């Protein structure tokens, strides 16, 4: 007895469609896939804000995990608040593992240290947002913000789609995520590349909502209401409101993203003179890690020389080395130079361009004196940053050759010791306030320990110190304050970090310095000892200091592993052989010893403890840096597992797709009708707004035989009852489903599988399109539906 009494109670509690959390009734698998696709598509434009693809794994991992947690929590019947709790917990675990893994207890439990590190990283991230030009490296701070953002968006989108059944708002939300990076970065790719995946996913989501669920679209939408005269509003105001919200959000949020409002990377404009704005330092790294190892230039020269493309003399608030833009003036064979040169070594060289796509900056040694050759007429020169460029519109093409004569400043040690630097140009000394104190401190410590008093000694001391550090092209990226801190803490980096940091330190010591960007001398070609081949791997950055009366003197702080560098020393400021050549060794071998042999201060490395920053800071900075480099494998694994689970769920779910028992009868009847309408629409019989169910279904069944007509009548009767009667019984739903089944069989009889699929597809599309055109949700329908589901 008690068992029979309990049974209905259990059944009731097992199937509770709570009225305030309407659920998707069907096709959840399709909707799930569409939603995931939408989120992933919305993340893709982040590629424009970040350099490289390292950002992608953490971001996609975050999207999938956040969505998966929300999805799973909902499937386990968790309410919105428990679900939010689960998602936040997941976020804490994810970020802890990704960014703060060495602060965790037992490898996975976040603690006080994690919180402190997180707060630090958060603040740093906000700083970076204001400082970084776009695209930025995927630094830990930025990634932390981004991951948090996509985590929140993924959760919200899941809720909007499945709990609020409001796909339009979900799409809107993803659209904001999608549009913000596009608003930040200058257009470099055609918009459709970014738009197509998003639109595809969005329309997939909308289509998967077609049919009876379509009506839910406008529950909170202004289109669903009537104005005071009882007239339904059209779709246009709704669309306009939604669009304004999206634009507003995009504009507001865009201002918070990396590099918003910064000068674009690269632009060519003007006539007569050429004006370039570049951020070639980023270009250096891109070249260093480029897969393309073919020759880009071939140089015949008396001696190995560095080929500059430009000089960067502005260290901006954006914490990047850059310059004010390049404004070339015609050369006419002879380069005018800005500063007076002391003794120079004359070098003649012939450069043959092999593959420098779209290059407008001409690689040339400092100081170029004369130029000759077929394209010499197009040469222009910007004296301020000693940059050779081309007429506006011209670019270097494969096969172009030019002959240069250059004078490489080669003063003696005495001249250099005696010379002061040029202190009259404040721009060459300017540093923003946000340079970390540690950098200033380190510079002073280095020169103090080396007893360096003259500017030349100071510059050499800093060069010596940095050359003792480790070279790697897989560094914690960037050269802003945080990255510089990380760099001086870890003492691992690549040329632009070495050069950028050294130049900052020199400026901090009062020496006018800039970063030169270009190429190392390249590898000698076997048969001709005067010929050098330059590849992308030779991309390089180094430091120049302006000595009074002697010109810009180059310093080389980077211990490049290939040894393809010219390291100035006290006795030989302009060496004519590279470190590798001095070593007489295989250029691919480690370069450090070569430098040591060239005569550095052997004590330098023993002074490390004197310069070493606090170890705690090192640990934190290191954690942040390490986190941005790679995502722990388990995250990737979990994401893959999740995708696999989704696919499995989709396959399993598609079987029970059309079974609706347990749903409210009204919904079952209307669903049965919409299935038939789909076929009707797919066969070209579209319902008119003024048509009753009897009329429309009659028209659909027309000419399909008496069985179809009878089934249509029966279905129409049940639909009429469902729509207009006081109450509706389960028997009606069963009858409607049976009639709809018969009708569908009759309608599709004689068609093959492909034709059936096409008909259904066309029907779905037609229904979705019609709904978009109508864009209204009459108030009584939703209230009735709610009443019916109770």
């Amino acid at each position, binding site marked *: 007895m008690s068992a029979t009494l309990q049974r209905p109670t259990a059944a009731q509690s097992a199937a509770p469609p709570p009225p305030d959390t309407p659920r998707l009734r069907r096709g959840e698998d399709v909707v799930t896939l569409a939603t995931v696709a939408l989120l992933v598509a919305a993340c893709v434009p982040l590629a424009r804000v970040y350099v490289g693809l390292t950002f992608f794994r953490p971001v996609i991992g975050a999207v999938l995990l956040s969505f998966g947690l929300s999805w799973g929590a909902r499937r386990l019947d968790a309410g919105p608040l428990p679900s939010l709790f689960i998602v936040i917990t997941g976020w804490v675990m994810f970020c802890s593992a990704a960014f703060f893994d060495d602060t965790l207890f037992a490898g996975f439990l976040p603690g006080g240290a994690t919180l402190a590190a997180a707060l630090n990283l958060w603040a740093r991230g906000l700083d970076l947002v204001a400082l970084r030009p776009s695209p930025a490296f995927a630094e830990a701070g930025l990634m932390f913000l981004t991951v948090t953002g996509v985590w929140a968006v993924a959760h919200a989108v899941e809720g909007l789609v499945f709990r609020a059944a409001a796909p339009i708002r979900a799409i809107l939300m993803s659209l904001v995520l999608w549009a913000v990076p596009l608003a930040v970065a200058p257009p470099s790719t055609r918009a459709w590349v970014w738009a197509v995946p998003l639109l595809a996913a969005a329309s997939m989501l909308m289509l998967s909502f077609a*049919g*009876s*669920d*379509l*009506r839910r679209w406008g529950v909170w939408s202004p289109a669903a209401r009537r104005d005071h005269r009882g007239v339904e509003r059209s779709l246009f105001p709704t669309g306009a409101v939604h669009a304004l919200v999206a634009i507003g959000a995009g504009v507001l949020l865009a201002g918070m993203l990396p590099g918003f409002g910064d000068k674009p990377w690269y632009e060519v404009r003007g006539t007569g003179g050429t004006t370039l704005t570049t951020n070639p330092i980023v270009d250096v790294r891109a070249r260093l890690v480029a897969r393309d190892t073919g020759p880009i230039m071939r140089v015949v020269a008396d001696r190995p020389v560095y080929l500059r493309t430009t000089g960067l003399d502005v260290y901006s608030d954006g914490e990047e080395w850059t310059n004010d833009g390049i404004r070339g003036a015609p050369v006419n064979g002879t380069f005018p130079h800005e500063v007076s040169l002391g003794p120079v070594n004359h070098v003649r060289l012939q450069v043959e361009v092999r593959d420098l796509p779209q290059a407008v900056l001409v690689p040339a040694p400092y100081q170029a004196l004369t130029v000759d050759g077929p394209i010499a007429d197009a040469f222009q020169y910007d004296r301020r940053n000693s940059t050779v460029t081309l007429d506006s519109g011209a670019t270097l093409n494969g096969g172009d050759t030019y002959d240069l004569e250059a004078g490489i400043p080669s003063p003696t040690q005495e001249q250099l010791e005696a010379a002061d630097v040029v202190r009259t140009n404040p721009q060459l000394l300017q540093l923003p306030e946000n340079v970390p104190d540690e950098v200033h401190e380190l510079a002073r410590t280095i020169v103090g320990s080396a007893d360096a008093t003259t500017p030349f000694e100071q510059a050499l001391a800093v060069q010596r110190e940095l050359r003792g550090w480790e070279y790697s092209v897989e560094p914690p990226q960037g050269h802003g304050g945080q990255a510089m801190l990380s760099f001086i803490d870890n003492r691992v980096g690549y040329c632009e970090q070495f050069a950028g940091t050294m130049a900052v330190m020199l400026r901090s010591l009062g020496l006018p310095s800039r970063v030169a960007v270009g190429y190392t001398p390249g590898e000698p070609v076997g048969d001709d000892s005067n010929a050098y081949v330059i590849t992308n791997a030779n991309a390089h950055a180094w430091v120049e200091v302006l000595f009074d009366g002697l010109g810009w003197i180059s310093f080389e702080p980077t211990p490049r592993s290939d040894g393809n560098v010219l390291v100035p020393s006290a006795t030989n400021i302009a060496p004519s052989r590279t470190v590798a050549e001095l070593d007489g060794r295989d250029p691919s071998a480690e370069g450090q010893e070569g430098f040591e042999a060239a005569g550095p201060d052997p004590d330098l490395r023993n002074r490390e403890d004197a310069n070493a920053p606090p170890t705690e800071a090192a640990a934190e900075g290191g954690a942040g840096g390490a986190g941005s480099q790679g995502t722990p494998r388990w995250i990737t694994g979990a994401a893959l597992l999740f995708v696999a689970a989704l696919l499995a769920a989709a396959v399993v779910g598609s079987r029970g797709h059309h079974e609706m028992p347990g749903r409210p009868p*009204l*919904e079952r009847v*209307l669903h049965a*009708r*919409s299935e038939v*309408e789909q076929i009707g629409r797919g066969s070209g019989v579209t*319902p*008119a*707004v*003024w*048509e*009753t*169910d*009897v*009329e429309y279904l009659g028209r659909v069944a027309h000419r399909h035989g008496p069985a179809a007509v009878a089934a249509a009548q029966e279905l129409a009767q049940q639909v*009429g*009852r*469902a*729509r*207009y*009667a*006081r109450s509706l019984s389960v028997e009606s739903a069963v009858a409607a489903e049976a009639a709809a089944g018969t009708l569908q069989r009759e309608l599709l009889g004689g068609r093959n599988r492909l034709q059936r699929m096409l008909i259904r597809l066309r029907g779905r599309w037609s229904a979705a399109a019609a709904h978009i055109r109508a864009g209204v949700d*009459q108030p*009584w*329908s939703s209230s*009735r*539906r709610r009443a*019916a589901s109770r």
Partner: protein
Amino acid sequence: MATRRRDHVPAEQLAEHFRRIEANIATVVEGKPEVIRLALIALLAEGHVLVEDVPGVGKTLLAKAVAKSIACSVRRVQFTPDLLPSDITGVSVYNQEHGDFEFKPGAIFANIVLGDEINRAGPKTQSAMLEAMEERTVTVDGTTYELGVPFMVIATQNPVELEGTYPLPEAQRDRFMMRVGIGYPSVAAELEVLDVHGQGDRVASLEPVADAQQIAGLIEAAKEIHAAEPLKRYVVDLVRASRDHAAVDLGASPRASLALLRAARALAACEGRDYVVPDDVKQLAQPILAHRLILSPEAQMADRTAAEVIDELLASVPIPTAGAR
């Protein structure tokens, strides 16, 4: 009466009654099921019917058959130009035996009143008739007399002969719930007529299948038929649209909305449903709305008809739906 209202007549039972009466009438009025049905719907919806058609198609026959089938009082009034209002309503006559006035009820005091060729009476008489129809009471010499239940007027009007007639003004036509045309019978039906009509008065031999009290019960039951919110909205939309139509000078009145919904309820009842569907409204739109529209002079010049306008409305006013379509 009050107890009757609470008695719930199930929709199926109502439909059964209806079918019986319908079948009964159909034995006499051949080949015109729609017309019979409309007349019965008007009866259940407490409306009056204006039968407008050429002579000899069976207008009077229809009215008589309806009246005969439901065993209730029938009065037939042949309208003529000299008919007086008191002939319709009744008159107080001095009774010398009792020494006071005695009310002699007029022709309207019956359950079913057949007004033949209503357009032949003078306007004054027409008015008296129509007022009684609307108010369902008659006031003579300060005393108000209630008319019975059911009470239905079936008036006929001949559209061909215009000489010596006083066509009902449009405003008066509004009082009729519906206007029906009977139309010529089909060949088969007409042959049948030839065969059958020689065999004496078939109406006289018609047996009643319901009484007045039963009909009153059905009327109450029909009022209980459920009309969902969107459906009422559809009725209103349709009637309002008739007022905005370009070819219409004067559209249908709120009385028309009322009549349409009431008749739709009755139709739903006849079909055994306890709820109204939009198809009910659509079916009844022509007979209930067409005679109430006054077309603009331009539309009349262009030979447009009210029926065309109604068709246009039916093919443009959206059907409101409960739930998703």
